[in-house]
């Protein structure tokens, strides 16, 4: 499937109101003349005939301070000076340093329209974390070679070993992260698989088994073997194209998984072959792996079961992540998937999320260089995750040395996650994304969710193609490891300073 043939359809929010960035205030001086309702093309003001008071402005539709230069600017037009415009204090309650309110809003717009926002008042490409991707910028050449967008390819191969196993190629260098049945709702899981199929890429079951309903999407589902071995079945291993060993998760490296008893419902328990209502622990680590040799045995075992499948190894980012990556190469893996410390999770101790293991930005560079030094880089596919929030993060990760990325939070935000962090408490996600509570899991349907994901992937692809074009390249593969195309706000590149000295 070529990205250009993916069908984009407008898929608006399922809620009546959006979270407003601006606040339009109407004072008592208003005489309900209706001027504002007539002038504002965005329907912020509504005048109801017969009412003696105008309705409250619908803040979220307002385009904000940009409007000041427009002829229709309501604040200037109001004959009584009753209107004023300000930043909405509500906006400060949305988002955080990593996922800013602008970034969340931008992703919502992408999921709704399929394109990056037209608005210029949103900084949706970089966050406010003050480090890593947020300090890296592209150094676009002033006069790149002309390349037509239609000539640009975003496809990448996942099997670079030339070992006779399946030559899996994905059309866009991103796929969906593992979210287990039990931690997210079925519509979330199914829509991820449908999106992966439409985009000719992948999604991952996470730990917790392979729901039957996903069988229709077998060619685009990675099945995971994690430390708890929950739901691992020979028949699934034999059916799929990629099998992933999950050693650790970036957000809680070294801590294993934990599904609360309340979330272990009848259906979850059946899938995991466990007893309903009991909390389920995935231990840490694999109790059968204490060396790279043990690790190889694992890989040999699945390769034996499925002679055509690719093997991915998912690890987090300790100091020796480069050794682990090279070890995985020698053990016969096709994909090394490194998951940085700032990645998403259904539930993890705050102390682990903040402190344990390094951010993905460093790990990509480390692993890429070490694989290169060992002469193994060309035979491995390096996938980065844990903190890839935007298309710009994706392109930066590739410039640092990754082949592609896995995303999780960005998918959930497309389904209108607000990052409130309550996924695992009580009944689970109040917005129906990460919940198996029967009432909450029904808050949206698969068609809506699939289209939102398809749209977001499309918007990312549009941005990625644009970046490749601005570098005068024809394939995303040319970007890999091109750190010379980046600059860091705190450091600067030699050539630039050479002018001064």
């Amino acid at each position, binding site marked *: 499937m070529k990205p250009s043939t993916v069908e984009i359809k407008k898929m608006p929010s399922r809620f009546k109101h959006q979270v407003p960035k601006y606040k339009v205030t109407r004072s008592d001086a208003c005489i309900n003349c209706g001027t504002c309702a007539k002038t504002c093309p965005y329907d912020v003001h509504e005048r109801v005939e017969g009412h003696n008071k105008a309705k409250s402005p619908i803040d979220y539709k307002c385009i904000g301070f940009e409007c000041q230069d427009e002829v229709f600017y309501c604040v200037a037009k109001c004959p009584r000076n009753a209107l004023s415009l300000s930043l909405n204090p509500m906006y400060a309650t949305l988002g955080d340093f990593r996922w800013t309110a602008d970034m969340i809003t931008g992703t919502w717009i992408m999921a709704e329209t399929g394109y990056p926002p037209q608005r210029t008042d949103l900084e949706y490409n970089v966050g*406010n974390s003050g480090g890593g991707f947020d300090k890296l910028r592209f150094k676009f050449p002033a006069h790149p070679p002309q390349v037509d967008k239609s000539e640009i390819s975003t496809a990448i191969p996942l099997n670079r070993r030339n070992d006779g196993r399946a030559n899996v190629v994905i059309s866009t260098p991103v796929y969906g992260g593992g979210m287990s049945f039990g931690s997210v709702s079925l519509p979330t899981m199914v829509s991820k698989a449908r999106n992966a199929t439409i985009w000719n890429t992948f999604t991952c079951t996470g730990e917790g088994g392979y729901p039957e309903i996903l069988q229709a999407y077998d060619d685009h589902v990675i099945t995971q073997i994690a430390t708890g071995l929950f739901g691992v079945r020979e028949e699934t291993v034999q059916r799929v194209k990629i099998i992933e060993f999950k050693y650790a998760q970036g957000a809680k490296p070294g801590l294993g998984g934990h599904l609360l008893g309340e979330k272990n419902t009848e259906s979850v328990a059946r899938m995991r072959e466990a007893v309903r209502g009991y909390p389920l622990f995935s231990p840490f680590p694999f109790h059968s792996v*204490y060396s790279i040799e043990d690790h190889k045995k694992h890989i040999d075992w699945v390769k034996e079961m499925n002679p055509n499948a690719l093997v991915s190894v998912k690890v987090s980012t300790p100091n020796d992540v480069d050794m682990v990556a090279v*070890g995985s190469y020698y053990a016969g893996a096709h994909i090394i998937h490194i998951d940085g410390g700032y990645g998403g*999770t259904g539930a993890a101790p705050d*102390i682990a999320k903040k402190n344990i293991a390094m951010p993905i930005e460093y790990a990509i560079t480390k692993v890429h260089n070490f694989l290169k030094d060992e002469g193994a880089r060309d035979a491995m596919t390096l996938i980065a995750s844990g903190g890839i929030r935007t298309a710009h993060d994706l392109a930066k990760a590739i410039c640092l040395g990754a082949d592609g990325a896995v995303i999780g939070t960005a998918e959930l935000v497309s389904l209108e996650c607000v990052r409130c962090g309550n996924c695992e*408490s009580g009944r689970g996600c109040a917005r129906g994304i990460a919940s198996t509570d029967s009432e909450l899991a029904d808050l949206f349907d698969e068609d809506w969710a699939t289209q939102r994901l398809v749209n977001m992937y499309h918007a990312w692809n549009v941005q990625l193609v644009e970046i490749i074009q601005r570098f005068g390249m024809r394939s995303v593969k040319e970007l890999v490891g091109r750190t010379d195309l980046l600059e860091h706000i705190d*450091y*600067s590149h030699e050539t630039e300073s050479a002018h001064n000295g």
Partner: protein
Amino acid sequence: MPKKYHIHPKATPLDLEYVCKFKIVRGENCINCGKCTKVCIYEAHKRRKDDPRKMADPNTVVCRNCFRCIQECPRGALEKSLDNDFTNIGGAFWKPDMLISLWKQAEDGKVPVSGAGYRGPFTGTGFDSMWTDMSEIVRPTRDGIHGREYISTSVDLGRRLNHLTFDTNGQLASKVPDTVDLSIPILFDTPVDNLISNVKVALVKAAAEINTCIIMPAVDITSDVEEYSNNIIPCLAPTEIDTYKAVLKKARLVSIEYSDTVLNDFPGLKEKIKKLSDALTIIRIPAMKDVEGIVAKLTHSGAEIIHIVADYRGQELNGSAGSDRRLLKDIIRAVHLRLVEDRIRDEITIIASGGIAMAEHVPKAMLCGADLTAIDIPLMIALGARVYEEPEKLLILPEGLAKIPLPIITQRMVNLMAAWHSQILEMMGAMGIREARRLRGETGRAIFFEEIDKETFGRLFKRREAVSV
């Protein structure tokens, strides 16, 4: 294997006015349709008891920021913002979110867990500029957190020999000095002057319950806490030794305020204490400039334990300009390195305190080179205290604290330590370290921002200053 150490938490809510993060206001255009009642799964929106036709004020204490009521109210009548109290408490170091988390930990004694990824800045100052390592394939612990493999947090205080000597018969010739063993690498330090009686007793009882000690001004050691003398470290000036003979006699450890006499004649001081008591001596030094030099000198002259005290935000004291004041992380590293260079690191026990505010600071301080830490303000926060940094340091204790029963305030402190202990286990388990003693100076298991950023990005994107020189 040592007996398994466990701290027993017990849910202990306090009926205090905590600060909440959010404020929700229902506008006048509300039509009392009740939609918000249906959509809020945390029950923040309810109808009025006296008049069910109308909505009551939102109960924002329970709000979890899911935005559903905001987005689904047909009239857009609800407004949410950050609460003023929330934005005002704390400061650059004692962040408001940190205070809320500590209150919660003191209430339930559990490790704070949440969904979605990390939300904070990429890096920060002091301890925020380091990460800890983990092991996944090579040398991991075997599930220490869920208790299948025991992780010990015990540390001991006292002088250790650089090496052992044996006589010609192979018998140990060295006299091994006494040490005091604690189950957790956290001492309590008296948080405020003029402690009210029940808080003082609670501090002592909590310290005893978790098998640690509290450093307390000798003058405060009165009959109400006498029975816990094993867990009390009297703190006094060298000139006061004779005044507190009785207290000293019972103590296992004594904390002596640093002064020039201590620096110039530690052996003399030790001799004087020895005549009265078997207590090991802690020298309490403010974290001033060149504290590493002083520590080295004291160690050479036989000091046993040194307690380095930074200010309440973990900054060096008597620094002139605010900007070049070192932070606790760097102070500890400097002290540790100096002692390693002098080849005397193993002879001395280093306690670090000042700005130990979260569980993560404990293992981090140890990785930097401390043997253990001491805490003060968090123990008051456990009781619902609020910290303010601006315009100046202010610690506000909740009203009516004197009336809260002793078992409750004790349990709150124990809860906080239970939560910290579990979190320390999480970090140690991930690092593959099963002995807290092994954390000391183990920088190979830490990732320092300055180093890794320079190694990766510095190498790729050369430093501007360096090039333009």
